[in-house]
């Protein structure tokens, strides 16, 4: 698992405007430099934040994706996908 790199996506979308723009215009290329598992990469590209949470990503960082409207996420899609997600123990 490379959940650190998933969390890094949430961090960089907030702190790195260039990365944010790239994630908006060409998400696959934005992720190309990160060491993500296929499952993680697919979930990020699909904006499946509930799945990413279940894989162990920190939800506060995932929220940055909705804050900046990347990967098809906004408050409505984010909350639809995050609500009800569950994992047994906090990561």
């Amino acid at each position, binding site marked *: 698992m490379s959940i650190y790199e998933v969390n890094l996506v949430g961090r960089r979308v907030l702190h790195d405007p260039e990365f944010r723009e790239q994630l908006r215009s060409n998400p696959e290329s934005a992720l190309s430099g990160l060491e993500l598992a296929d499952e993680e990469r697919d979930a990020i590209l699909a904006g499946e934040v509930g799945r990413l949470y279940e894989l162990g990503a920190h939800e*506060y960082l995932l929220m940055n994706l909705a804050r900046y409207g990347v990967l098809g996420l906004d408050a409505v899609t984010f*909350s639809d996908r995050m609500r009800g997600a569950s994992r047994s123990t906090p990561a």
Partner: protein
Amino acid sequence: MARIVAGFSTPHTPYLPMVVPKEADSLDGRYFNEIRERLEAAAPDVIIAFDCDHLNSFFYDNLPTFAVAAVDRFRGPSDDNPAIAPRYVPSHESLGRAIHSEGLKAGFDLALSERLDVDHSIMVPLHFLTPAFDIPVVPVFINGLAPPIPAGGRAYALGQAVGEIIRGFPEDLRVVVLATGSINHEVGGPRILRGELWGAPDPSWLEHVLARLRADEVDALVSEATPEKLASVGNVAGEIYCVLAMLGAIGAGPPIFLEPNVRLGHAYGAWLRTNGGEEGR
């Protein structure tokens, strides 16, 4: 010698600086004013600010449980707040350094930061409480957000140790201790409201915390505020550790002011130091 003159607790919800000016007589606007007036009356030379950060100042590449800044100034907010332009805030380097070195001797292995950017957890309260950002602030960080978080008793004991360090600090300073954060709150997690990025999942916990604080039952609250309990309340409920640390530092009795915004899951509080300290000027 330095003296602790008061303790305060406020939320740091990042959209408050955007919405408060638009709402005439909003609860949050009134309560921030109340705390600001009390803080001004306490006339601090330095503010010690216990805060939890949001993986902005510190990230998973190097994530401390406790940390303190020994800097002459820090910068914030680092997390893009439309109502607060990024700026420098003065700090008090030697007091920060004393908290680090004396903290180690007292059994608290705080991480040391000599260069710090802070997020809304420090800058939102300062925006309302010290609008000129001119009072030196020493940030003391407690991880209440990224599990595993420490036991509540450790946060309280850290506060007690910081209080001792302040009272042993040789400069003649009036010190206010500030705690920032929410009590019943979820941000970006599974318990957010439909169509929103936040929720306040467990109002009964907020009510319980307020009752404990009003009755000065801090020891009971400390033992109840376990990581497991807080995780069951909301994903930022660990921010109550900042309140516990503040209370430990000032050695407080009951609050002289404590009012909640139940809808948002946070509260505003003011305490005077009671164990031998001078109360106000």
